[in-house]
């Protein structure tokens, strides 16, 4: 077997099982094995997608959800990154804030939902606050860890070669911490969607979670399944974007060297 052909076959092999599952699901639904009140057929989900696409509702909901996710991520990520940098570089800053942050970290942020609803009502602020809080910790911890574990021999080398503090940071410390920061980024993206799903499902008047909850009230199970699938797709999309960034920024890393 030639190499390109083998690659095609190997790449295609991964798709065999999902396709079989989909075909089996469709067949079981059509034959009445799965009642439509439990799980609609894939073709019904596709029909629901078509309907919502034509009416434009789906874009509105995805847009609202994506906006919440990104803004919340930007706020929480920026604060986490800044604090991670500060505590990684300055011992005083670390002594002052790290213990407190580690204590707060042990509160599951979703447990704050009742409190957050009392504070912000069910407006946008509530969702942004929860997403920002959820995203904050993975970014903070991994940035801090990345900076604290930069090879001290490289830092000594930079000092010997007369690098200024700014140069040392830009050329040695930050690039050295980057692999760990990316781990935090990917982890945070997962938490971002998870938080948003919960927050939108509990209290919202727009967005994917709202769409799913409203569909449940009207027993539109196809729309419920559709919104779950869209969440999965958005999560996958965010992770792929993070991997692309990682590949672009860490070309030097042995893990990303072409074989």
């Amino acid at each position: 077997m030639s190499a390109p052909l083998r690659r095609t076959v190997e790449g295609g092999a991964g798709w065999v099982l999902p396709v079989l599952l989909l075909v089996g699901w469709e067949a079981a639904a059509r034959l009445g094995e799965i009642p439509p009140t439990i799980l609609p057929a894939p073709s019904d989900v596709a029909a629901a997608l078509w309907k919502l696409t034509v009416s434009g509702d789906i874009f509105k909901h995805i847009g609202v959800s994506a906006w919440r996710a990104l803004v919340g991520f930007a706020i929480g990520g920026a604060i986490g990154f800044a604090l991670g940098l500060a505590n990684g570089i300055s011992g005083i800053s670390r002594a002052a804030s790290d213990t407190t942050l580690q204590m707060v970290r042990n509160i599951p942020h979703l447990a704050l939902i009742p409190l957050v609803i009392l504070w912000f009502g069910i407006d946008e602020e509530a969702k942004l606050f929860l997403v920002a809080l959820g995203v904050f910790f993975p970014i903070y911890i991994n940035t801090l860890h990345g900076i604290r574990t930069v090879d001290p021999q490289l830092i000594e080398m930079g000092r010997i070669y007369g690098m200024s503090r700014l140069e040392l940071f830009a050329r040695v410390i930050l690039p050295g911490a980057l692999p760990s920061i990316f781990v935090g980024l990917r982890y945070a993206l997962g938490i971002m969607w998870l938080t948003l799903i919960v927050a939108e499902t509990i209290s919202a008047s727009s967005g994917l979670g709202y769409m799913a909850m409203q569909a449940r009230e009207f027993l539109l199970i196809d729309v419920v399944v559709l919104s779950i699938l869209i969440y999965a797709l958005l999560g996958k999309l965010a992770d792929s974007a993070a991997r692309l960034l990682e590949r672009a920024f860490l070309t030097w890393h042995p893990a990303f060297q072409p074989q």
Partner: protein
Amino acid sequence: MNIAVRDTDTVAPPAGLRFEGAPFFLPEAKSAPLPAPAAREAAAPSGAAFTFKGVRKAFGPKTVLHGLDLHVPAGQFVAVIGKSGCGKSTLLRLLTGLDAPTAGTLEIASTERRADITRVMFQEPRLLPWARVAANVAVGLSHMRDRREKHAAALSLLAQVGLSDRAGEWPAVLSGGQRQRVALARALASRPRILALDEPLGALDALTRIEMQMLLERIWLKQGFTAVLVTHDVAEAVALADRVVLIEDGAIALDVEVPLPRPRRRGSPELARLEGIILEQLLGAPA
């Protein structure tokens, strides 16, 4: 005609080729008083002399150096040997200003800042994994501002250590010996007057090591900096250095000149005899 030209070549080889061909017959090499006086004298001003006067260094309750006195003239290649923990690396850290002596003084015969004239090469290459080879060399070129000028200088330094074709690679793909050569190019970038070498060849395999020793010797002869090589390998010390200093319990136990001509032939009886004397002292019994 052709034959005549070839004859003159063998009589007076171009300076750069001197070390590619090791001398095959010892008598002639022995009779030459100093093998490369012209090269040494021409480069001499670029080395700096330094003197340790009664230098003591303690880390907490543990005293590592007890009143060390050592004068090294400009351009000398001195090897410092000793058992692990004898204080030889501390000596280098003091010399390069990474640590300050607890008592005593260290004088360097230069008006320039010490950080500008001393460079150190470590056992590990300490290259930035996220910078290409040329950019790593350019770390040593902090005195240059212009980007293109820096890159050109880095390339010519890489050519000196025989790596000009690897300028665009990541350090991760280089072999251990190649990484150490990049580190050498970086250390030489600012034309240091004192080069401190902290067992830079310790982690290399035997053949790569000898290649690196020859490269080091060639560059030292050309540039004339003062070289301080800390090593635990006595054979390496006598093969490379003008003078071997043995440190025991934080003080100098032996200080011998190595008056052998260069290039030195590895495995020659003179080197072996000197190595024997030093090992005897080091191990405290006839080797």
